[in-house]
């Protein structure tokens, strides 16, 4: 299925529409699938992802919930254990903190605590990231926190193809999968082949091949990193760009293959620097490729500040192409 032959007939679509098509496809394929969350039905989804699905599938399967993140996430866990395949939409990662107990103490632990008797085949989707001037409580990037937790899988689709393809594969997983959709990507356009479908969720992807430095990133930062790579090319620096795609488990093999080739690495991660996913990746490079490296591993992360409201300060608080270019040049000794 994953290796389905791709027919011609390329269409342009947005990331939002790709996610919607993925949900629609899942609802059609499997009667056990239903979508549940705040404003997913009548409102059409906070980010308009589920617009139109209520009319098509009805209120049982496009289920509006009260503002009870812990309650409906836990209900998703129970429904998954009871034989359904729920997609729980938590409006944003910021509100997922109200469901963190259910995610960490139940979804991630039940298989283990029960000695492998019960699993939780649940998919939880949520929006993440800064960039819309929504200030300190609505701009978090906490996917790195979730990637800390054994028992769950964490995905970050950065492309239209992954937005379309990761959901179905995630729904086939016998364990909980969290999918983080960066808010700045919903309006992004991209192309999909007519029969676009499920994609692999285990491997990182090399989005740009290069030989001088590995830029390792995921999600919304991918596009800033690719922009930085274009700028670096103008200065004869040939950067390789890795899109992690899966934040847990991490695809060490793809990362190490790249840094073994380029011998230099910068990690780009919108999460706060201290204790970040970038720190984990950097340490893995130290553990597995230290003797191959020609320079210290660099990082471009979120600044250690709650995200401020004013646009210029918000932009300064998160990764951008200029910071990535500067970090790459520093790693190459080209200041």
């Amino acid at each position, binding site marked *: 299925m994953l290796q389905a032959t791709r027919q011609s007939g390329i269409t342009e679509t947005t990331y939002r529409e790709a996610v919607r098509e993925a949900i629609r496809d899942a609802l059609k394929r499997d009667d056990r699938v239903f979508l549940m969350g705040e404003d997913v039905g009548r409102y059409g989804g906070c980010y308009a992802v589920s617009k139109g699905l209520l009319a098509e599938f009805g209120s049982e399967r496009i289920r509006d919930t*009260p503002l009870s993140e812990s*309650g409906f996430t836990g*209900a998703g866990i*129970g*429904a998954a*254990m*009871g034989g359904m395949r729920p997609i729980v939409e938590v409006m944003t990662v910021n509100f997922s903190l109200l469901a963190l107990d259910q995610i960490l103490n139940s979804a991630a632990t*039940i298989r283990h*605590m029960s000695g492998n008797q*019960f699993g939780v085949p649940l998919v939880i989707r949520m929006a993440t990231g800064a960039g819309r001037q929504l200030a300190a409580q609505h701009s978090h990037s906490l996917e790195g926190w979730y990637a800390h937790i054994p028992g769950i899988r964490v995905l970050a689709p950065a492309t239209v193809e992954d937005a379309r393809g990761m959901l179905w594969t995630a729904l086939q997983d016998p364990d909980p999968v969290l999918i983080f959709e960066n808010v700045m990507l919903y309006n992004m356009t991209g192309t999909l082949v007519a029969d676009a479908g499920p994609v692999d969720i285990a491997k990182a992807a090399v989005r740009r091949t290069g030989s001088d430095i590995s830029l390792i990133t995921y999600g919304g930062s991918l596009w800033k990193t690719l922009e930085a790579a274009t700028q670096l090319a103008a200065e004869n620096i040939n950067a390789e760009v890795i899109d992690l795609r899966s934040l847990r488990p991490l695809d060490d093999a793809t990362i190490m293959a790249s840094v073994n080739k380029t011998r230099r690495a910068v990690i780009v991660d919108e999460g706060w620097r201290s204790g970040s996913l970038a720190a984990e990746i950097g340490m893995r490079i130290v553990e597995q490729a230290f003797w191959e490296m020609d320079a210290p591993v660099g990082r471009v992360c979120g600044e250690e500040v709650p995200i401020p409201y004013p646009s210029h300060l918000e932009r300064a608080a998160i990764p951008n192409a200029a910071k990535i270019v500067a970090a790459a040049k520093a790693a190459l000794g080209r200041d």
Partner: protein
Amino acid sequence: MSGTTDKPRLSRVHMLDLLRQMIRIRLFEDKCAELYTQEKIRGFLHLYDGEEAVAAGVISLLEKQDRVVATYREHGHALVRGVVMKSVMAEMYGKREGCSGGRGGSMHLFDNTTNFYGGNAIVGGGLPMAVGLALADRMRGEKHVTACFFGEGAVAEGEFHESLNLAALWGLPVLFVCENNLYAMGTALAISQSETDIHAKAACYKITSEAVDGMDIVAVEGAARRALHAIRETGKPYFLECRTYRFRAHSMFDAQLYRDKTEVEVWRKKGPIERLRTWLEANHMIHPEELERINAEIAAEIAEAVAFAEAGSWEPVEDLTRFVYAEAAS
């Protein structure tokens, strides 16, 4: 609401069975306390001493396909539900032969053959799961009931209110059973709740509710019978508050500074086993030798369970990281 099935069953055989269920829990846990002092059982051990009428009165009425969600004080619920005693004891030891493979311990008893969904040690954490299990049954057209047990401490958690609302809003077949033993660890109900009549809280979610003397198993069973009948008729949730008392400490680490010893003694006299036994004796429904036989049979079962746990095996350390994710079928 009261059909013929709601009438209490006072037959001698049935009453003896209820008594037996409660004694079985009590003696099993007495043995667990003893094994704890011998350091055979470690970690937290929360005993149900005094509350046996709730699990025995409710769970014995459930159908095989119904589901049970319990708390970290769940040994009694597991035993009444039919989780095999020796596998429960092996779990207490942390042995591989335990009902959760040894990975869970006292607080995390699980058993998929009896639809026993644990052993949740986060207060209130099981309620949303029960809602979800009932939602799955509703969406799949199954007529099962999910019985969800929790203490009165959980009533202060947001998940309690979220779950009652969801169950009522969506019309889900959940039997909420609040085991009100008056103390959330050491915090008395009166100093933690503005409204101490817990069953009244269900009314604001439009859930039918009743409070029952949780020390009287006949009353508990009668209420549970009414509740289950209503749920199976309507598909809607029902709320039972069972007013009970915990005779022992919250866990084995609790010095019980928060309550008077005389208070415990007063409640002990109202204990559910004592109460049913004296009633049966007063009505000449039990002979002393029958009680001896019940005790002896249970003692033998417990001895067998202990021997099974003792003889059980430790999971090899090489297996440490198993059961975090599903293993690919080989």
